[in-house]
């Protein structure tokens, strides 16, 4: 796969039907932009499936979920590009998710679930073609053969408690030694060395093959990544891949809390104790300058919303600061609107979600901006000073700086959390509101102890 700046070439795909097997990276040219965007779209699908699975949804529900997610996220304005997007996004995510055992496991499970759903939807011909791709020596049972075998096949189905429905006429034969589990459980009819496998059994077997192929491919991808790609691409693809990896999969804090976590009275103290560095910095600057530029207003404003600050309180808070610089009327005229906009009360009424670390890290603060991720965007000197102000001990500061040098910004923030609170944070920080919640937990438990 060639990644180009702005070039684009027509595709010659080696995919069969619309369900690619992702055997090898196809000779496509991909725009750098699409590299990331396609992957994010696919990740939404996988993440959605993951969510569904962890909420214990049944297989049929997962199927519907996968269908909706795919439709919603994997479209492309140009119909001919849909398959490309599918393939490209898969291969990009391979890079992202090959790096650790846990990542590989997650990716394998989700991609296999997705594959299983998509396979079931394919036509019988397409399914046969796919099975041939896997070198699975399955042959479809003709209608006439099915008629002659019907009684036996029906009997096997009843014996395993899954009686055939009139719709269940798709059967495949395969040498019995290819399906040892089914033979051992007497879950198939075996005749003259051939096992007669029902459709739902075939899906399982194909999915198992898919999974094992992908598993091996991920190991190889990881080797290539660590041995050459990561270094070669360190200025171009690697940061994107690494950012995608720590991609936010947790709650998005879009639901305001029942009770405001903070009241404007306590906000200064809480900012000191529980805000992550990025928000602390914005908050301090706001107090100092009585102003923040747009990026900062978004980042801090949404964060406060996620923390539970109600719209009225938010308006009061921002007004109190801004009016010291621009005056109350100008605030009402120019800034109140956007705060209400953030809370979904204006315009298209989208309820914006607080930014995750991934988003904050990838932002690009300019002159006069104070948003972004300090671990990424601050100079070393400034960062050390800021950590000092947070009373992080010098040993921890060195660890943090080490992480920063290696561009593990979220790990740096996690280490900061641990140093400040004196506890470990195994989950790792990937959202400022998460930092805040975790911090509050520690702070409140300490209060309980003190009492």
């Amino acid at each position, binding site marked *: 796969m060639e990644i180009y700046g702005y070039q684009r070439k027509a595709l010659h795909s080696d995919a069969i039907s619309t369900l690619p097997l992702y055997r090898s990276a196809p000779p496509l040219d991909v725009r750098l932009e699409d590299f990331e965007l396609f992957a994010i779209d696919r990740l939404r699908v996988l993440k959605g499936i993951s969510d569904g699975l962890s909420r214990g949804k049944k297989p049929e529900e997962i199927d519907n979920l996968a269908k909706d997610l795919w439709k919603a996220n994997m479209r492309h304005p140009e119909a001919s590009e849909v398959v490309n997007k599918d393939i490209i996004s898969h291969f990009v995510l391979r890079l992202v998710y090959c790096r650790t055992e846990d990542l590989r496991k997650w990716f394998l499970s989700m991609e296999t679930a997705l594959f299983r759903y998509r396979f079931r939807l394919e036509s019988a011909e397409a399914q046969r073609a796919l099975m041939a791709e896997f070198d699975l020596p399955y042959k479809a049972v003709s209608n006439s053969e099915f008629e002659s075998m019907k009684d*036996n096949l029906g*009997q*096997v189905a*009843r*014996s*395993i*408690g899954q*009686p055939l429905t009139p719709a269940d006429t798709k059967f495949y034969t395969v040498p*019995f*030694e290819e399906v*040892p*589990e089914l*033979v*051992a*459980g*007497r879950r198939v*009819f*075996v*005749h*003259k*060395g*051939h096992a007669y496998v029902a459709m739902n059994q075939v899906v399982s077997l194909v999915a198992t093959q898919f999974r094992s192929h992908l598993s091996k491919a991920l190991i190889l991808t990881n080797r290539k990544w660590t041995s050459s790609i990561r270094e070669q691409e360190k200025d171009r693809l690697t940061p994107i891949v690494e950012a995608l990896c720590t991609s936010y999969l947790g709650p998005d804090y879009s639901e305001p809390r029942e009770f405001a976590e903070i009241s404007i009275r306590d906000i200064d103290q809480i900012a000191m104790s529980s805000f992550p560095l990025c928000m602390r910095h914005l908050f301090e600057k706001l107090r100092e300058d009585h102003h923040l530029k747009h990026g900062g207003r978004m980042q801090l404003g949404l964060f406060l919303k996620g923390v539970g600050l109600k719209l009225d309180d938010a308006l009061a808070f921002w007004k109190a600061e801004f009016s010291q610089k621009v005056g109350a009327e100008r605030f009402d005229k120019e800034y109140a609107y956007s705060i209400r906009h953030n809370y979904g009360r204006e315009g298209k009424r989208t309820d914006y979600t607080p930014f995750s670390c991934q988003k904050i890290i990838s932002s690009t603060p300019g002159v006069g901006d104070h948003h972004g991720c300090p671990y990424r965007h601050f100079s070393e000197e400034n960062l050390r000073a800021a950590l000092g102000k947070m009373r992080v001990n010098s040993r921890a500061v060195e660890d943090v700086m080490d992480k920063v040098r290696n561009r593990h910004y979220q790990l740096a923030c996690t280490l900061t959390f641990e140093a400040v609170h004196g506890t470990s944070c195994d989950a790792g920080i990937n959202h400022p509101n998460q930092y805040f919640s975790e911090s509050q937990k520690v702070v409140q438990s300490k209060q309980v102890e003190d009492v």
Partner: protein
Amino acid sequence: MTREEIGNGSEDMVIDECEPEGRERNSVPDEFNANYLKVYYGKLFPHADIFKWISYGNDGKHPACDQSYFSRREFSYTLDNDIYLRYQSFNSASELENSIKEKCPFKIDIGPVYSVDPAKRHAYAQTGDNVFTPVERELVFDIDITDYDDVRYCCSGADVCLDCWPLMTVAIKVIDTSLRDDFGFNHILWVFSGRRGVHCWVCDGKARRLTNEQRASIAEYFRVYKGNENSLKKVSFTGLALHPFLARSYSEVLKDFFKSKLLLSQKLFSTEERYEKILEMIPDESITSELRGKWQENKRSSISKEDTNVVRWQQLKHILQSGRPKAQGLRRCVEEIVFSFTYPRLDMEVSKHMNHLLKAPFCVHPKTGRVCVPIDPNCCEEFDPTAVPTLSKLLEEMNMGTLRADVDNEWDRTSLGKSIRFFRSSFLQPLLKSCKEEIENSYNAKLQHSKNSMSW
């Protein structure tokens, strides 16, 4: 004293014109010892046939023959004083024969074909690229009547009689049919184990190349009886129907065998202890107490024991199969009972592992002196384990026939002749024919392939 013409086969060996005293002159005390064995290995044991079988066609001149194939096969010996020699291998038929004649093993086992000559195994690792590992092995089964001790009352332990032996017959029928019809195997050898069971050797190329996992899956496919002394119900059929394999076994073999033979030969309902064992398999108190009530009454008025068994079985079947709506556990209770008593009980471990050693056919069992002769699955009901030739009998037969010169092989004068001829005609010849074809075909395919890949 007239000497009988020795015909062919054991049927003709009725020496009714000799006086018992006269017979003693040629008679050989019924024993098992090294001397007898030496004669047996010297004159009767079919070395060449075993070699041909185990070579699977690779002993020919065809360029595609694998010259190392036979030498990579493991044999093992159990010698006189219980000394056990593993990883024996041989490069030719004569080496094998000479070794057996010289060492005179009390038991010969056949193991797998390894990746390299077992004699050289120490040069190879256990894992990695250069490995010493089994690469081919027949699919084997071992059925031992002691595994049925809980359902036979006539004998126990090592004994076998004509009342319980039919359990082996039934096992052969069920497994043999399935190996052929379900799994498509053709080259199957059934052998008497010498005392109380049977062995099965499936020798198709496909069978020999099965992995451990695939062997286990076939063994599991055959497994029905699960559990031990602690579980009451060892056979359990859930599901709305029986798998066709089980249904066929039931209707073609087991049902009738149970009803017409086993019920009577083992008198399964004749005593309280015995019928309680069956009642234990019925998970319904009301039914079992109803039957118990009937039978406790009947005990006093029964005329013949045999009738009792048949009658009681009828009563049980009637209650369980009558129109009454059945609780889950009762739907197939009758079948479960029949299967518990009659369905084959295999030794799973023997079948699952490629490196499991199994006794060679035509060995002599040290405890009984009987030869491990092949059994014809097509007429296995006629096989009588108590009439299998013993070592001493064979020697006796040999002594009697010493003056004849028109028979090529010694064994042909003896009862062993029939067995060896059967081995050759119904097993070895078809097998070798098929092996040669296989070797030819794969050779031609390779030639074709290399031709294709060289074409421009």
